[in-house]
C-alpha cells in the first residue's frame, strides 16, 4: 500500500548505496526532482537503468552516484551528446562507469518482461547488429515451433523504480497520461517503487481504460510540484526545450557542471 512520504524520506528509505535504480519516463515525466534528491543524499555505486539516460542520468553520473548504466540511447535529445556520460566512459571522470547497452526494442521488452514476472524477454531483434558482441546479456534462442532464431535478454527487475506522474488520489492510486513510456512497467517490475506526483487529489477523474497504477502496487508517493522539469508533465507544463539546449554548454565542462549541481541541486532545497 502506497505511503505518502516526503521525497527526502522516500529516497532515504528505498535508495541505498549499491541499489539498482530505474528512473523512467520516456522524454515525458522524467523524475528530475527525485534524481536531484538522490544526488543531494550522496548515494553511491548505483546501477542506473533507463532507456534514455537523458539529462537526469548525466547529472547523476557527473555527481558521482553511478557505478553502472544500463541504457539504449544515451544522448541529449535533439541537441547532441550527454557530456557527463561521455566523460565518464571516455575519460573516467569522476570515476569509470561501466555500461551495458541495448536497443530500445530490447529494453522496452525487458521492462515488459520484468512487469510480467518473467526472467527473460524474447524479441525479433539484434539481427546483424554488433551489440551482441559487446553485451553478453544478449543471447539467442530457437523457437520450438518454427525453428526461428530469436533474441533473448534478461528482464529488467530493479530494486527500486522511480517515476513521476500527474496525480495521485489519497489512496495512492496514480494517473499517468500522455506519453506513458515504460513507467507502469518500471513500477511493476521493481521490488520497490517511488512515484512523485504534481499533486494529490480527491478523485483522479479519469476514463475507463486510463493508465492508472493502483496504490497497492506502489511503495511511496511523494509530492514534487514541477518535479519533472526540464522534462514536462502533460496537462501541467511544457518541456523546457531551451534548457535542454543550454545543458550542452553547462555539461561540456567539468567545472561549470559542478557549479551548476552545487547551485541548483545541493543548495537548492528539497523542491529542486
Amino acid at each position, binding site marked *: 500500500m502506497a505511503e505518502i512520504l516526503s521525497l527526502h524520506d522516500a529516497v532515504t528509505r528505498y535508495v541505498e548505496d549499491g541499489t539498482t535504480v530505474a528512473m523512467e519516463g520516456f522524454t*515525458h515525466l522524467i523524475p528530475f526532482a527525485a534524481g536531484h534528491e538522490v544526488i543531494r543524499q550522496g548515494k553511491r555505486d548505483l546501477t542506473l537503468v533507463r532507456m534514455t539516460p537523458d539529462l537526469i542520468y548525466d547529472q547523476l553520473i557527473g555527481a558521482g552516484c553511478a557505478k553502472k548504466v544500463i541504457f539504449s540511447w544515451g544522448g541529449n535529445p*535533439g541537441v547532441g551528446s550527454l557530456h557527463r556520460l561521455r566523460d565518464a566512459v571516455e575519460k573516467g571522470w569522476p570515476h569509470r562507469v561501466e555500461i551495458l547497452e541495448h536497443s*530500445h526494442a530490447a529494453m522496452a*521488452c525487458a521492462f515488459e518482461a520484468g512487469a510480467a514476472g518473467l526472467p527473460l524477454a524474447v524479441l*525479433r531483434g539484434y539481427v*546483424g547488429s554488433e551489440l551482441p558482441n559487446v553485451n553478453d546479456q544478449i543471447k539467442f534462442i530457437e523457437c520450438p515451433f518454427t525453428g526461428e532464431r530469436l533474441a533473448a535478454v534478461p528482464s529488467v527487475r530493479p530494486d527500486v523504480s522511480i517515476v513521476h506522474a500527474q496525480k495521485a488520489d489519497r489512496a495512492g492510486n496514480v494517473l499517468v497520461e500522455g506519453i506513458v*513510456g515504460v513507467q507502469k512497467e518500471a513500477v511493476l517490475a521493481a521490488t520497490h517503487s517511488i512515484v512523485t506526483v504534481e499533486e494529490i487529489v480527491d478523485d483522479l477523474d479519469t476514463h475507463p481504460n486510463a493508465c492508472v497504477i493502483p496504490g497497492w502496487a506502489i511503495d511511496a508517493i511523494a509530492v514534487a510540484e514541477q518535479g519533472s522539469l526540464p522534462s514536462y508533465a502533460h496537462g501541467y507544463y511544457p518541456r523546457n*526545450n531551451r534548457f535542454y539546449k543550454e545543458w550542452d554548454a553547462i555539461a561540456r565542462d567539468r567545472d561549470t557542471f559542478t557549479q551548476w549541481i552545487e547551485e541548483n541541486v545541493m543548495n537548492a532545497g528539497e523542491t529542486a
Partner: protein
Amino acid sequence: MSHVEKNLDYTAGEMMTVTAARALENGTTCFVGIGLPSEAANLARLTHAPDVVLIYESGTLQTKPEVLPLSIGDGELAETALTTVSVPEMFRYWLQGGKINLGFLGTAQIDRYCNLNTTLIGDYTAPKVRLPGGGGAPEIATNAGEVFITLKHSKRAFVDQVDFITTLGFGRDGKGRDGVPNIGKGPTRVITDLCVMKPDPETKELVVVSLHPGVSAEQVQEATGWEIRFTETLESTPEPSARELEVLRGLKERTAQAHAGQ
C-alpha cells in the same frame, strides 16, 4: 559546397530535406527518427503526402505536429496523435508486428553496405568518441518494410567500414540479410545534401543514382570515404518547388519560435 546557378535560392540542407520528403509516398506508415528524418517526414505530410502516417518511438501513433519536436517525445507529438501507446507496445505491436512500411533514420556513420554506426568511434572498450547508441534503429532497420536514411555527406560520416555495426544495412559483405526470415528489405535509399544513393540490387553496395543540382560527381567522391560508384543512368535531382521551400521554412520558423519560448 559551392552554390551554383539555380532557379530558386535554397540551401543544400533544404535540397536534402525536400528530396527526402519527396521520397515518402502518401499513405505510407512511417516510423520516424528524430532530427532530419522528422523534418523531412513532416514536410511530406504538409505538402504532397497529407495521409502519411507518422509514428514516433515514444508511442505517438499517427501524429501531426504543428512544430517539429526537439525530442522524440515532445508534448506536441502526443497532443496531435491519434492515440499514444506505451513504448513496449510501440516496439512490439507496431514495429515488430509488421505494421510499419518504412523506417526513416539518420546516423552518425554509414558505410559502403549501408550499415549504420551510432555507437562509437574507435574501440568499444576504449572509445575515442562515445555516441548515443542504438535507440530504436537496430530493430527499425530489420522490422520495417524498408528503410530510408538521410544525413549530411562528409568523409567522417561516409566511411568504408563503420567502426561498429549498430544497425544492419547489408552487413560487412553485403549479404547480411540473405536467408534471414521475417526481415525487411533494409535500406532502399540514402538521401544527402549532395545526392541520392541506392544499394546495387545484386551487391548491395551504395550507388549514386542522382546528383543534386550544381553538385559534381567529384564533390560526392571527395565527401565519401570509399570509391563510390555512380549509376550509368545518373539523374539530376529535381529542384525544390517554391511551395515546398515556403512550407519547410514556415515549419522551421514556427519550430524555432516554439523552442526559444520556453
